[in-house]
């Protein structure tokens, strides 16, 4: 019996989606102002599936994002200043400048950072799920993979491993149409990634990734399945990458018609419509949320801009346990809390 999402929960998810979009818009401006070190990878159009899937987790569960799942991080309690400092390479970033973009996290917060090599997270999250099972904990492990990433050997090995051992692992496969410039039909000979679930002997499902309610419920089902010991789920979300691979890529290779098609199905737009249609919220509510987000962003951005760059000597630290680890060099300057589902 599926629970119904309350108004508060829906507005919560709305908040996180807007936060994601507005933070990324800000990052884009900063990028063009030359204030960002390295590249910028946006998740425009995909905010819904990231937020909704992460929203279905509980405290104690583990999350591992990829580059286009910023929304999931916010749901789990990450704040904008952490993202800004990561992009700027500041000494106050969660990794002290050791790594960039969303490559940060901590076991205490239940957030496992990715590496750039695609697919590698899946065996690792399988291992976390294995530990959960061995420790008789109810916690599940959830991670994401793009259509491109499903082609890797690590994806296959990790999923098969989790399947055989019936581990509480959820893999959200995001079919967003493109892996850099490679369209899906050059990546795989099938239409739906979830079809592969049969091959692994696990549960698979395909949902509309831009429908946050559908994604939320599908993820809840997968989470419950995992907690009951029924093994992994390969949950495919259909969505679309509305910008290029990164800010330096203008995605000229994507047909205009596709973009127009998906523009109409924007997740934020759809949730606004749903809320309005069900009399749960109106423009003033949305504006209030937007306003709140603007203030949060301003405050966090100011903090990030005023933060110093890292002490160069930190480059030598944290290689082994015997050398001081990153968090020991300087305490985290700000509090962060693990947000749970209200």
């Amino acid at each position, binding site marked *: 019996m599926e629970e119904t999402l309350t108004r508060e929960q829906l507005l919560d998810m709305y908040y996180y989606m807007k936060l994601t979009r507005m933070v990324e818009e800000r990052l884009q401006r900063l990028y063009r102002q030359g204030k960002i070190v390295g590249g910028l990878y946006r998740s425009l159009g995909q905010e819904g599936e990231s937020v909704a899937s992460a929203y279905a987790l509980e405290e104690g569960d583990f999350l591992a994002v990829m580059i286009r799942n910023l929304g999931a991080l916010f749901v789990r309690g990450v704040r904008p200043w952490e993202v800004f400092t990561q992009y700027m390479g500041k000494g106050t970033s969660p*990794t002290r400048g050791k790594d960039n973009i969303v490559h940060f996290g*901590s076991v205490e917060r239940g957030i496992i950072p990715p*590496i750039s090599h695609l697919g*590698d997270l899946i065996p690792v999250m399988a*291992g*976390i799920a294995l530990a959960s099972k061995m420790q008789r904990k109810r916690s599940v492990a959830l991670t994401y993979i793009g259509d491109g990433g499903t082609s890797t050997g*690590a994806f296959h*090995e990790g999923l098969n491993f989790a399947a055989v051992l019936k581990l509480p692992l959820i893999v959200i496969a995001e079919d967003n149409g493109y892996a850099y410039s490679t369209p899906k039909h050059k990546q795989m000979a099938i239409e739906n990634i979830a079809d592969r679930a049969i091959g692994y002997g696990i549960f698979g499902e395909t949902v509309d990734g831009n429908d946050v309610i559908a994604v939320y419920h599908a993820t809840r089902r997968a989470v419950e399945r995992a907690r009951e010991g029924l093994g992994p789920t390969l949950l495919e979300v259909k969505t679309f990458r509305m910008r290029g691979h990164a800010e330096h890529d203008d995605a000229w290779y994507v047909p205009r018609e596709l973009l127009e098609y998906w523009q109409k199905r924007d997740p934020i737009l759809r949730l606004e419509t749903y809320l309005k249609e069900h009399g749960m919220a109106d423009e003033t509510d949305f504006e209030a949320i937007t306003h709140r987000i603007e203030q949060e962003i301003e405050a966090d951005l100011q903090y990030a801009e005023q933060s110093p760059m890292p002490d160069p000597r930190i480059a030598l630290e944290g290689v082994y*346990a015997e050398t001081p680890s*990153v968090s020991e060099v300087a305490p985290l300057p700000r509090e962060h809390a693990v947000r749970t589902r209200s």
Partner: protein
Amino acid sequence: MPVLTYLEAIRQGLWEEMERDERVFLLGEDIGVYGGAFKVTEGFLERFGEERVIDTPISEAAIVGAAIGAALVGLRPVAEMQFIDFISIAFDQLTNFAAKCRYRWGAGVPIVVRGPCGGGVHGGPFHSQNVEAYFFHTPGLKIVEPATPYDAKGLIKAAIRDEDPVLYFEHKYLYRRIRGEVPEGDYIVPIGKADIKRLGRDVTILTYGWMLHKSLEAAEIVAQEGIEVEVVDLRTLLPLDDETILSSVAKTGRAVIVHEDTRTGGIAGEIAMRINERIFEYLEAPVVRVTAPDTPIPFSPPLEEFFLPQVEEIVQAVRWVANY
């Protein structure tokens, strides 16, 4: 004191750690029901159960990846590579994930990846390799290779207790051919410490694994000629024990590095460079090395014998530096 084979010592170390700490568990191919291709883990499944002795699919990347995940949340996995040659499939997980977590986000990855290395058993190119050089280059990893039963038990315990990822190489030729006294009960051989297996005065041999035993043989031969060789068993390849290595070579002034691994890019080059850049003034002769040639490992016995460093070569190298 009990006398065990090298393999029995490893088994005993693993067993004691599994008894001592319930967070320790094993995963790998054919380690449970079959007891491991070389029977290292024989009896473990019966004693510790399926949950702690996991027979996995053939997925070295997933085996190591899962070990990493489990270690991140507090367990102490020991992953087996059936032959260490297959570790190449897990290269990415080891060098890009395990080695970098602490550096990037302060999280330790206390895994052990163990497996049989080395030749001498007509295993051919894919069952006889020494893979330390591929990982030696990766900051964040540790590498150990015991040569005696005593060190084997002590080092597997140390590896399991270490907070960072440790690669534990067991030389398959030594498994049942080397016996030695192994204390009962708990003891550690510290990681990062070399051991002087034979005190000497004229020439230092720096070596590890099977080559330790060949070096000791060589030392006995040249002792007849009045050359007293000091044989240093590195035991830990990464991080190298600079103090012991440099003290010994500064004392004798002559160094011969012996390893079974091939020549170019083998760790002898790194060791020789450390000697050169710090204690050049103490050298009486160039630092030389005895290694396998730069080829894949051949299969047929006469070819493999030619390939592997032999006692005679070590003797010649020692004489050369001694008479320089």
